[in-house]
């Protein structure tokens, strides 16, 4: 009976992972296809990579996206970390329900709604106080920061909730100031979560099409906007090449980050094991 069950589970896993990975693998394989058609393999070639790198519009859009990504991930970390701290360590305060709602809602809010509402806010603000003057990289950065901060807050909060508070309490008993406790004790302990939160924000920002389309201005085309306008017309080998590069970069980034997190966790558990001896 139990072997029948495990056969079912294993086939579910095999089928599920095939479903997740075969489409990605096909994109990678066909990025090296000589011909323009997807279905016909015309021999190995890297010409689509060459043509991708000589596409100035694509390169400009990629730079815009990278700049927005770094800026908004950093801002999101600066806003989301205190938000996560407040949610897990500050107990009850006036307006807490609203606060937790404003952190949970951006995670599921349909992007068209977020995009439209932010655009209307920017337009209204411009009428009222003259800022932001026009739309462009800065408005996209603000928009991305807002929803990325919610993700960072959730990551930081769940890390803090699963963490032992005894060291923080001991430091408080010994008279350390709250700010000092945060920077000397809490921050180093949640560092892996901060790294994960930054990377998550960076990739979310790099990936966003809908919100950016609403709040972008002339001259602030991002990479997803560029990809979308060419993908609308069908499959293009150049996009396959770009996709392969993105997948490669993300995989390398994730593997390095998880190795770093794993190592820091191992060192910590070893240190605590040593301390117990």
């Amino acid at each position, binding site marked *: *009976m139990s072997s029948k*069950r495990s056969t*079912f*589970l*294993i086939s*579910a*896993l095999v089928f*599920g992972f095939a*479903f*997740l*990975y075969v*489409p*990605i693998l096909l*994109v990678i394989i*066909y990025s090296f296809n000589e011909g323009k058609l997807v279905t016909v393999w015309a021999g190995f070639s890297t010409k689509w990579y060459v043509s991708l790198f000589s596409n100035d519009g694509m390169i400009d859009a990629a730079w815009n996206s990278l700049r927005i990504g770094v800026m908004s991930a950093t801002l999101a970390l600066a*806003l989301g970390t*205190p*938000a996560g701290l*407040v949610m*897990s360590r*500050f107990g009850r305060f006036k307006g807490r329900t609203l606060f*937790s709602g*404003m952190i*949970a*809602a951006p*995670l*599921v*809010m*349909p*992007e*068209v709604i977020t995009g*439209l*509402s932010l655009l*209307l806010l920017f*337009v*209204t603000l411009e009428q*009222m106080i003259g800022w932001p003057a026009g739309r462009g990289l800065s408005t996209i950065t603000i*928009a991305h*920061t*807002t929803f990325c*901060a919610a993700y960072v*807050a959730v990551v930081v*909060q769940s890390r803090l909730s*699963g963490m032992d508070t005894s060291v923080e309490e001991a430091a408080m008993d010994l008279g350390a*100031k*709250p700010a000092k406790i945060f920077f000397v004790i809490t921050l180093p302990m949640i560092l892996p979560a901060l790294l994960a939160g930054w*990377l998550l924000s960076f990739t979310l920002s*790099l990936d966003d099409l*809908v919100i950016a389309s*609403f709040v972008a201005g002339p001259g602030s085309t991002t990479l*997803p906007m560029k990809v979308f306008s060419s*993908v*609308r017309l*069908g*499959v293009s080998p150049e*996009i396959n090449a770009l996709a392969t590069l993105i*997948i490669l970069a*993300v*995989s390398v980034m*994730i593997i390095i980050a998880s190795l770093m997190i794993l190592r820091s966790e191992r060192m910590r558990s070893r240190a605590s094991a040593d301390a117990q001896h």
Partner: protein
Amino acid sequence: MSSDKLTIKQRFDRWMIKHGRVLVIGIPYFWLFLFFLVPFLIVLKISFSVAEYAQPPYTPLFEWIDEGIAITLNFGNYLFLLSDSLYATAYLNSIRIAAISTIITLLIGYPMAYGIARAQGSMRSVLLMLVILPFWTSFLIRVYAWIGILDREGLINAFLLWAGIISEPLIMRQTEFAVYVGIVYTYLPFMILPLYSTLEKMDVSLVEAALDLGCKPWQAFAKITLPLSMPGILAGSLLVFIPAVGEFVIPELLGGPNTLMIGRTLWNEFFANRDWPIASAVAIAMLIFLVVPIMWFQHIQTKQEEGQQ
């Protein structure tokens, strides 16, 4: 000099102790309030304005703001949404497509999450990593990958024609079927992760006890595993359902011209028709439907956090 500096530092410390808490709460609070909550109020306001003022892309709000005081609530946009069956169709389609996709995602995701939760040590982390990895790679590119597979000249048709199973290419892209495939594919990790975290915490000995006491495996599953994993099922389903209702990219790239979804309608009202008030009214109509699931999701989130603490 040094004593002067010290007093500034002391003053700063004293100020921080007194106001630090307010500052730490206040900065993210203010940001989210201004850039997440206030925008909805503006959408609500503009949904009541008159479409004529909004004909050119950038001027409408100037005029609208100038007459701000004189403006009375105009329900015309909402009446228009009710009178034109296109919007009702798009609305109901979105809910139906999102609900069916959520169920399919759950049916595929549950056994996967269960299998991962029951896998051994290092194998489990590898499998978990394999679930998370596609979630990090571009959403747009994962949708795009299916164009090449489902297209008339795509890989499935090429294979089936080559194998002699079909003589005419099947129409798969630009159908509702393709939209289901796209949603299930891109949202699957969102379903698996919360399911995994509840299944992993579950006490296996309960199931073993039930089996020892003569329960059939499916009974043990229905009576113990399924109820205990309910928080994960709910969280995963809401994480898929809510954004899927407003999905734009998937119906646009994989769906046909007849696959009306409310997110796509909003996009077209805004970008193609440049009718901001109608687009705002569509957004508000979508929000009214989604407010209950969103609050439910927030409730589950908070409960889970409190359970952890």
